[in-house]
């Protein structure tokens, strides 16, 4: 995965030089370890800042919404599916994009590493399958597969679904992954237990909306949380307001969420709000046989009516 960086710089440099694109969206190293930030490369000097490692979890499709210029964009499996969703929803045109596919082996969850570290981590060194975190008088090596983001460990679409260039040959997709164990464990609870479970889950929420901002699906000019006439959801930390927010946010992602994990990654208090979207993802798969963002030509199930759509819930 580390060898990707050179190849990415080469492709980005070539695309910019030939004038095929006006900018390339990728990642550069962040100011602290494990926090790569999005990078918009427009000049050869910018290109040299592009990097790729296991901390590129931000979903770059988020930066494509309503852009007018020609853009080269790096795309992991999940990014590429969100790009497909963007194309379906007319947020960007396919012709504007040069998609640089990056076969992905999963991104590392910085919290998992930070939790096992005794001090603040000041340096992180990555090898092919391991990752070493160093701090003041401290050094520890982890197997990457043990510290992956939860959604990455369940991912079955690691390779980009659409691409114009590839930085490496496709990686082997994970087989036999049980993607919905979490959903099932909640389904086994009684309504009271579920209520309690989500109350505890959402208790630390500070309503910063980082999950919404990190999400490539959330591009409404005015979000429902900011509407005040009528006000759909209060702005307080009242549990029912918090719950309404998370509930509606999840609903808006129904049939669109690729489980890229950007929301969970962005959350400053570590709430796993994927618990909501995961359920909707499973429902879409069970009820409509739908997996998000695999083909720009197919309309999503909530867009189209089919006579065989399930309707048992109606009296």
């Amino acid at each position, binding site marked *: 995965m580390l060898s990707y960086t050179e190849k990415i710089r080469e492709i980005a440099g070539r695309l910019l030089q030939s004038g095929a694109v006006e900018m390339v969206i990728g990642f550069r190293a962040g100011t602290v370890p494990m926090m790569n930030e999005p990078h918009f490369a427009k000049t050869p000097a910018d290109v040299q800042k592009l990097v790729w490692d296991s901390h590129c979890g931000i979903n770059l499709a988020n930066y494509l919404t309503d852009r007018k210029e020609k853009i080269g964009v790096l795309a992991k499996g999940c990014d590429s599916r969100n790009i497909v969703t963007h194309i379906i929803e007319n947020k960007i045109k396919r012709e504007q994009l040069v998609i640089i596919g990056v076969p992905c082996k999963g991104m590392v969850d910085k919290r998992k590493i930070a939790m096992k570290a005794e001090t603040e981590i000041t340096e992180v060194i990555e090898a092919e399958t391991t990752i070493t975190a160093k701090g003041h008088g401290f050094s520890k090596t982890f197997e990457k597969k043990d510290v992956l983001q939860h959604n990455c460990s369940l991912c079955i679409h690691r390779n980009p679904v659409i691409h114009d260039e590839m930085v490496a040959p496709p990686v082997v997709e994970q087989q036999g992954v049980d993607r919905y164990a979490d959903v099932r464990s909640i389904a086994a609870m009684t*309504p009271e237990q*579920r*209520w309690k479970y989500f109350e505890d889950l959402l208790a630390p929420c500070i309503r910063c909306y980082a999950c919404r901002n990190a999400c490539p699906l959330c591009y409404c000019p005015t979000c429902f949380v900011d509407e005040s006439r009528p006000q759909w959801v*209060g702005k307080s930390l009242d549990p*029912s307001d918090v719950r309404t927010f998370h509930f509606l946010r999840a609903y808006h992602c129904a049939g669109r969420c690729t489980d890229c994990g950007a929301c969970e990654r962005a959350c400053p208090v570590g709430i796993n709000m994927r618990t909501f979207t995961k359920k909707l993802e499973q429902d879409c798969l069970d009820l409509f046989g739908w997996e998000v963002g695999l083909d720009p030509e197919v309309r999503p199930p909530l867009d189209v009516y089919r006579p065989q759509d399930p309707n048992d819930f109606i*009296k």
Partner: protein
Amino acid sequence: MEHMGIEPGRLQFSWISSAESTKFVEVVTQVTAAIKALGPNSNFAKKMAEVA
């Protein structure tokens, strides 16, 4: 809804034609009975600040 712990049955759907007033009465009765059986919606309702 149910996933989040709101009781199934708090939300009901039906399909009634504008000519089916009898069905309307029937369904209203059913829905009311179902929700009555569930009891008050104490979980989701926003609690007003209690003033002494």
